[in-house]
């Protein structure tokens, strides 16, 4: 559905995006992650034809914008990070204008439905100048959905929303995805991407440094998994027994909590539980600490930076 082939954008000596090969499948929610200046927005702008690539090409539905500009543009919806709106218009007028632009049939019904969905129908006749940041963000989301696009491209869609608004938009994204829409989300809110996306691509310094499912990215990065074992009563025999297990790398006792580091190839909680019981202990609780996307993101970008620095050296 969304594909870039060797997409590159250079501004003089600075390379904003370097040889990017993306492939987002139909019906997928793809998270596009990266620190500020990583090249995410430039990539999105190249996908939309608003920035010309220096090399390579971007394809939507297998076609470039040159091949079918209007046809493709009518099949994509875009939510930008900052909502630039005609502030003198009411929400209703604004959305009806865009509905006309996209040739939406029965625009009154469609605009009403979507405004109700984001709970702004009652405020439809207020001018946008008086809307809060969160409300304009929701109007931006509604605008992107008006023409029922096949692809949704969202740049920081929940950045200015309160927790309630975040949930509303998140539910909307999932709902639209269940209807078959392909969604590309660029975000710095890692927890949001983690909750919503099927796959993520991590950009750093214009390069795609990792691309996989969340679980696979974590697995690839994690050298060891930490398991917290809460014991009824801690005793040295248990620590000794666990330290002797082949898959245990380290142990550390803090009161009744025994922290056990294991290799990441398997979930060893059952083995640990059995070993504690064999040593005469009682397990009260077991908690497997997973690496968060945030940890993975930092690890990946730091690795990439050190690789780049290494190359330069």
């Amino acid at each position, binding site marked *: 559905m969304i594909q870039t082939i060797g997409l590159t954008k250079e501004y003089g000596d600075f390379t904003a995006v370097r040889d990017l090969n993306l492939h987002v499948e139909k019906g997928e929610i793809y998270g596009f992650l990266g620190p500020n200046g990583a090249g995410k927005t430039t990539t999105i702008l190249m996908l*939309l034809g608003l920035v010309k690539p220096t090399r390579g090409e971007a394809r939507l539905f297998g076609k470039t914008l040159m091949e079918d*500009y*209007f046809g493709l*543009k009518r099949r994509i919806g*875009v939510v930008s990070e900052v909502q630039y709106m005609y502030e003198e218009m009411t929400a209703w007028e604004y959305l009806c*204008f865009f509905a006309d*632009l996209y040739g939406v049939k029965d625009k009154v019904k469609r605009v009403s439905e979507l405004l109700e969905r984001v709970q702004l129908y009652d405020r439809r006749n207020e001018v946008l100048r008086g809307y809060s940041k969160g409300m304009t963000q929701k109007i931006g989301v509604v*605008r992107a959905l008006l023409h029922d696009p096949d692809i949704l491209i969202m740049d920081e869609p929940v950045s200015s929303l309160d927790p309630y608004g975040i949930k509303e938009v998140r539910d909307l994204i999932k709902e639209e995805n269940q209807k078959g829409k392909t969604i590309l989300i660029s975000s710095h809110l890692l927890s949001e991407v983690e909750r919503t996306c099927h796959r993520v691509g991590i950009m750093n310094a214009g390069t795609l440094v990792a691309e996989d499912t969340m679980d696979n990215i974590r697995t690839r990065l994690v050298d060891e998994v930490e398991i917290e074992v809460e014991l009824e009563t801690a005793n040295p025999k248990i620590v000794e027994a666990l330290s002797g297990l082949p898959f245990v790398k380290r142990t550390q006792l803090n009161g009744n909590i025994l922290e056990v580091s294991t290799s990441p190839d398997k979930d060893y909680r059952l083995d640990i539980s059995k070993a504690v019981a064999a040593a005469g202990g009682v397990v009260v609780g077991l908690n497997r600490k997973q690496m968060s996307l945030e940890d993975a993101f930092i690890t990946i970008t730091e690795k990439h930076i050190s690789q780049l620095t290494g190359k330069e050296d």
Partner: protein
Amino acid sequence: MAQSPFSYQLNSIKTIARREFTSIFYGIGVYLALALAFVVSSLIIMGYTGAVMDAGLVVLPDPMMSPLYIILLISTVYLGLSATVSISRERERGTMEVLFYGPVDGASYVMGKYIEHMAAFIVMGVASLVFLGLASSITRFSLTGGVLKGLVLSIFMASCMISFGIFLSAVTGKMRNSILLFILVMAAFAGFSALEGYLLSFQGDLSAPLEYGRTFVAWLAHSIGWVSPLSYLSRGIDAARIGDVRQLLINIISPVLYSGILLWLSMIAFERKGVRR
């Protein structure tokens, strides 16, 4: 069944033009421009009636032509400036970028803006005709065929000014810069036009080098006249006054070419410059 790209483009042009047309008439600028035009032309007409009352008789072949010229000058300059402001403001606010997320390209955007301003001019033209008709019935100065021809030709003259405004905003970035540029360029064109008139009317004896200089500067000013939308307005009004068919045709074809070229260049400028803030 999928529609053709052209029909999508046409829909975008129509939608943009309709929105902008409405926003022009929601604003106060258009009414102020018309009010100013009507006040100034009323003063001219009052000057004529005063002269008639003082002298008993004044020979005026086309008494409504000068008021018409003033109305057209103010209306078209206002619309040229409005075109410049509306595009550069959209770029500055970022709303242009949002339009281009959707089925809008440089050509449909430029044409939408152009048609919107042309439609606004037609409404202003009708208001001007009503005003001149009222003035004519009050003062008994006749509305001649020349004035009516001038009104028809004014559509082409307005087209030049509007295209010029669109072109300036397409090549500049910030709204303040494009307004300043518009005012400066208009002032320069007016200056060249005045210089051309002065040099051509200069009757004194000159030495050969000064005579060559005068001829060259007059030629230069005349050439610049083909770039200045103000000159198209003056030439159009002159053609309407004279009523010569050839002149009338020239003043239809040349503004069409001028507008076409400027709109085409504006589209290219959009492609090159992009639509981002």
